[in-house]
């Protein structure tokens, strides 16, 4: 090719070869199907919750409710009706337990993660591994002994039993995520602060804490969601229904109204709202925590 054009003053313009866009199209199609698969159940949950019990029990189903109604939601949110009273109570129980767990988990995890990142004390590795290993075990293994333990501590049928238990599964991931954050904060920053006149604690408080805020937020989201969704312990430790949290409460609701699918769907919708909103608003912190801390190369 070039040998034929040696005399030509103009260099040959070679067309830029565009990569085949096959990969991009495959990605789009895949993503579309995946989104369909993901939202289909959520879509049906919402549709069903807008139907009357009669409309829900039809074959073939009404793909779009013929006469949509919010009655199911009003019933759940009415503090004067018996269903609403229970539901709102479960809701606040869940909120209390989840917030308390989150606050405690952060308070306990922050110093521990900091120590695991910064200090080299004997037994450090062993303790760190032991904590990480906690998440290897299913709740069922701990159920009987913890039930007995709670009996001894007088915590059966209290929210204290749940908060204490939830701490143990929130903590390992919290410590792991936060440690990743602290590992990424150069130790020289703290050293500089200490030379500038700060105590060890002040250096932590003024310099390290602000830099690890995204990690603390991510940790909080994780603890909150974990506590909000927990089922087995709540199911075992709580027998009084005024203490119940949402997952257990909803199950109770279902066992009493086995065919009230629209009511059940409305309840699952309301139960999902707080965690979904919380997560969507703060998801960037969660992704960042994983990227910067936990998942390095």
């Amino acid at each position: 090719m070039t040998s034929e054009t040696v005399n030509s003053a103009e260099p040959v313009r070679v067309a830029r070869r565009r990569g085949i866009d096959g990969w991009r199209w495959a990605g789009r199609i895949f993503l579309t199907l995946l989104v369909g698969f993901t939202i289909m159940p959520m879509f049906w949950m919402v549709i069903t919750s807008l139907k009357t019990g009669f409309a829900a029990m039809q074959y073939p189903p009404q793909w779009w409710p013929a006469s949509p109604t919010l009655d199911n939601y009003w019933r759940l949110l009415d503090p004067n009706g018996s269903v609403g009273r229970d539901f709102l109570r479960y809701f606040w129980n869940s909120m209390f337990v989840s917030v308390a767990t989150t606050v405690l988990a952060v308070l306990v995890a922050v110093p521990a993660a900091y120590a695991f990142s910064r200090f080299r004390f004997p037994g450090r590795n062993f303790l760190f591994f032991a904590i990480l290993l906690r998440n290897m075990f299913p709740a069922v293994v701990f159920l009987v002994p913890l039930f007995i333990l709670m009996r001894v501590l007088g915590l059966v049928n209290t929210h204290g039993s749940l908060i204490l238990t939830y701490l143990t599964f929130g903590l390992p991931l919290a410590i792991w995520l936060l440690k990743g954050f602290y590992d990424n904060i150069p130790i020289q920053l703290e050293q500089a602060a200490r030379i500038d006149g700060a105590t060890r604690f002040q250096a932590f408080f003024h310099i390290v804490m602000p830099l690890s805020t995204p990690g603390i937020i991510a940790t909080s989201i994780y603890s909150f969601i974990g506590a909000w969704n927990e089922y087995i312990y709540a199911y075992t430790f709580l027998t009084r229904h005024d203490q119940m949290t949402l997952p257990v409460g909803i199950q109770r609701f279902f066992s009493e109204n086995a065919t009230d699918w629209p009511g059940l769907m409305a309840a699952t919708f309301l139960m999902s709202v707080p965690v979904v909103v919380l997560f969507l608003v703060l998801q960037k912190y969660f992704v960042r925590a994983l990227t910067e801390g936990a998942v390095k190369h």
Partner: protein
Amino acid sequence: MAQVVLKDLVKTYGSVYAAKDVSLTVNDGEFVALVGPSGCGKTTTLNLVAGLIPITSGDIVIGDRIVNDLDPKDRDIAMVFQNYALYPQKTVFQNLAFPLMMRKLPKDEIDRKVREAAKVLDITHLLERKPRELSGGQQQRVALGRALVRDPAVFLMDEPLSNLDAKLRVQMRSEIKRFHQDLNATIIYVTHDQLEAVTMADKMAVMNGGLLQQYDTPANVFANPVNMFVASFVGSPAMSLVPLELSSSNGQSALTSAEGWSLPLSERNARKVAGASSNKVVLGARHSTINLHKTQMPGTVPARVYTVEPTGDITFVQAFLAGAIVNISLPPSVVVAPDEQVWLEFDQDRIHLFDGQTEMALRAD
């Protein structure tokens, strides 16, 4: 301002010595450079003085206090870190204000002092920026400024210029030196660049493998290196070191090579080698003290040119001599080519002789 004394300072990590029996005195107002190759324990020594890591044994005196057990904040020091360590979430102003804030100074005084320091360092227009919005040189100034706003007894600086480009480095070098003169500050300055040490410091402390090798004025270290390590570390290009054998015939001492030539020694140099622990002696010579001849002359030894690097006003030549590489500098008028046979002449009054076994310098007395 105050003096700093290190007495038999030891720091171990497991079974590794990061600093071993380091003893030196930095007088009030002195600028001392701590030099040595990477990993020799410079940062460790500085961190020990700052109190950032616990000492294994020994004493540190700042002013008239033994500060071994004092927190960094109570030692009255300021430090500039190797990588600046600017607080990323704070603006330049807040970075400079932080040490004053920690000392609970009133707000208006903090403001005044920060602006004063910013003016000196010419960073007033950067005060509202965050560190990541600054260039390397600007960050450097801010790091210096954070040390400057206070009036500490001692300044510690850990390779503050190592991240800058060559031109900026030269400029900052003279600024730090000016700053030292204006404030009459006591400064301990870590660098692995011996040129920086020679040009800036009143005294230099050469370290290797956690050990202090030599502590003296740059001129003395340059003229009288105590051992082969210091000799080869200080000076650029490095001092050439040629391992030879000691021989003597008819009461005349000489250095002999395996190739057969021998270099008779002057009477003073003969007295030096008399103290050698074996017949292995290393000849040391700086590039400027070696003459190159194109023909054999009395007192010259044969060498072969290896590389030639013209730099404009000086041509640097490397040549093989008795299996070792020798650095020579020539005026540009002398032209040599690689692989050319040449003859080298050593200035007997300016050569260095080292014990081949202990690597220590041999002295006449």
